């Protein structure tokens, strides 16, 4: 009944020095993708993702967040990216945000792509994000960057890509 082991590590990358973006572009042959990140940004900012190099306003998101004093939810339409955290990735002097991004059925060419992310900022709060990329194209690459254009992903940030193959 089972199809064997899956949840395969595809690639991992540790940022050696401040980088504007990190891109994964070789991940065919799976059903779902998972990206596990530990991220700092300089001078700080929200980590974001874009697919297939699409920088147009084809993205939207809804986020739920909470800290020690309350919880809330916000959303935005027709954006150029999906932000993956509500509590910005801290600067180099802080702890790393950890994030787990889930991308279901990424290679289908029928539906728009819905992604889920859970992020934790130890100093500020926790959040969950659902994002939509309004394209039916199969995802063939994904690029992570910091929403604030003047910010970089800091050295020591890590990105690990896994593939899951369904039976």
């Amino acid at each position: 009944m089972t199809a064997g082991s899956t949840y395969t590590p595809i690639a991992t990358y540790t940022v050696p020095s401040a980088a504007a973006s990190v891109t994964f572009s070789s991940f065919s042959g799976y059903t779902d993708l998972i990206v596990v990140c530990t991220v700092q940004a300089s001078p700080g900012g929200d980590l974001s993702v874009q697919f297939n190099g699409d920088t147009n306003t084809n993205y939207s998101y809804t986020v739920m967040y909470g800290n020690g004093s309350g919880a809330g939810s916000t959303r935005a339409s027709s954006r150029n990216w999906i932000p993956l955290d509500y509590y910005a990735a801290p600067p180099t002097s802080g702890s790393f945000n950890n994030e787990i991004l889930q991308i279901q059925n990424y290679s289908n060419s029928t539906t728009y792509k819905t992604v889920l992310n859970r992020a934790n900022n130890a100093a500020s709060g926790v959040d969950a994000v659902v994002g939509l990329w309004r394209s039916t194209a199969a995802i063939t690459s994904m690029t992570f960057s910091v929403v604030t254009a003047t910010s970089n992903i800091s050295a020591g940030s890590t990105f690990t890509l896994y593939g899951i193959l369904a039976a």
Partner: protein
Amino acid sequence: MAIRFASASRIGNKLPRGSNFWDGSAVVVNSSYESIATVTVGSGGTQSITFSSIPATYKHLQLRTSHATNNTTNIYFRINGSTTAAEYGYHYIVGTGSGSVFAASDVSHSNTYGVFAYNSNPSNFTAGVTDFLDYTSTTKNKTVRQLAGQDNNGSGYIQLTSNLWINTAAITSLTILSTGGDYINQYSSFALYGIKG
């Protein structure tokens, strides 16, 4: 020099040639995570899907889903075919982007199912990851946790849910269902995985 672009293939160039971990090709991994079965909904949709005869050889189950429904509606799940309302309860919190979050619960056990996804609809697909922990235990009631969400470029929701099945039986089957004549749309997929302990 700041790295402006890094790809998996370029990462691979930095590593010993003997490693195929980085090149994006199939890798043989002694993983504790195995695919058990997948259901993809065909033309015309369906009112329910069932995973039966779930092997008892894992420690935990994970259900990874992508689904849409013909109307704006919740969808639900049942364990081992049980329709006993006293066995199901839940809490969830939902954000819809409206500024505040809201929470709901069923602690009076008034439903004959657990909540699987809040406010599914036809516009776009809801993504979900649902964990059934220690599903073969015969001494514990079963706690089920889920992250699910959908965005429609103008509306949406993100949800964290905890379901309780008040029954110590091992889980051997799972049913995902719509109610009230609604159905789960074509192209929806439900993939069940086992995680070894």
